[in-house]
């Protein structure tokens, strides 16, 4: 009944409210210091990081599967922006390129005529 009015946001704890909270905070800080300052955990952590990476990739794959191939196909089908092969910018760029080419040709032709005159 409460949640029907809208999502209930998380209760924000900016600082420990009692000794239990303080204890949790202390344990987290202690573990962090322990791991960060311990020199011999390098290999262990490296392997764990690799494993996390592998797990994340797997999870992403699973999420994609869960979304469904049909959904992906439908999204792609109706995504007009990415489906448009050429847009206005492309035409402007092409026009500029052609104009530049024409200008270069003219300059080259003029230089050839000048050379012939010299001879």
């Amino acid at each position, binding site marked *: *009944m*409460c*949640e*029907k*009015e*809208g*999502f*209930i*946001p*998380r*209760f924000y*704890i900016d600082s420990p409210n009692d*000794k*239990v*909270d303080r*204890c*949790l905070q202390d*344990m*987290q800080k202690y*573990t*962090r210091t322990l*791991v*960060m300052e311990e020199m011999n955990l390098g290999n*262990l*952590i490296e*392997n*764990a*990081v690799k*494993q*996390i990476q592998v*797990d994340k990739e*797997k*999870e992403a794959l*699973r*999420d994609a599967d*869960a979304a469904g191939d049909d959904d992906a196909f439908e999204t792609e089908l109706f995504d007009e922006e990415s489906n448009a092969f050429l847009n206005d910018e492309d035409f402007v760029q092409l026009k500029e390129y052609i104009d530049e080419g024409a200008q270069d040709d003219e300059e080259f032709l003029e230089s050839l005529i000048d050379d012939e005159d010299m001879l």
Partner: protein
Amino acid sequence: MALADLLELSNKQKKIGLSEERLKPIIPYLRQYVAFWREYPDLFIDFLQTGESGEIPEDGLHFYFYQRVFLRAAIRYKYVYMVFPRAYSKSFLSVLVLMIRCILYPRAKLFVTSGGKEQAAGIIKEKVDELCNLVPALDRELDHRPGKTRISKDYCIYMFKNGSYFDNIAARETSRGKRRHGGLVEECVGVDGTILSEVIIPTMNVARLCMDGTMQPEETLNKSQIFVTTAGWKGTFAYDKLIQFLVWMITEPEKALVLGGTWRIPVLMKLLDRSFLQDL
């Protein structure tokens, strides 16, 4: 007993109806309470037990300090790994966490898994019975209508009146394709790592549908994993998982937590007999 005493007694036991009209004006306050209890589950249980006197009954559930730490840790973080010895009340508290989550998050679907299906069912049944005896308010949240809460030898499902439920699922191929929002892996040291990562964890790839029709994937409940075990061996899947959570605890401190405890605490709290240890 005088008539005045009798009248007072009857007044005390007078039932007050809980209609929608009565609840609607206090919904904004209830929302604040729910948000608060989602972070302070121990205080929620205290609240359920205190009556007009404001005191927890003698035969109620009185938490020890370390149990409060356990409860808050298990409910606030998405990924929790806990290694504790026998008699630490770890299964009891973990099942309590699931029940609290089911009550405070409507439509939540949670699971418990263990080495064997019967083992998980046994643990759940025993702990839920114990909890319902200690805190009758928890029992009143369960839906006991026919076809809802079902208990059998190797399978049990506890359904709540708000549409949430938790059950035990087997750490086997047959569990592939099921959908849950979070869960508890009991005695994870005895669970097959491949099955866990290929069958059990993928069951949690959907987010809870809130009562307002939205989905909040970042909600703590979604994909929440609680691993609880007694100490195991190095070089096993459970050990790798522990290290993985430990790294997360450092890199993403708001998401993961690893906790451990020694036999000294249950002995200190008289949950474990000193002579039992000496006989080992």
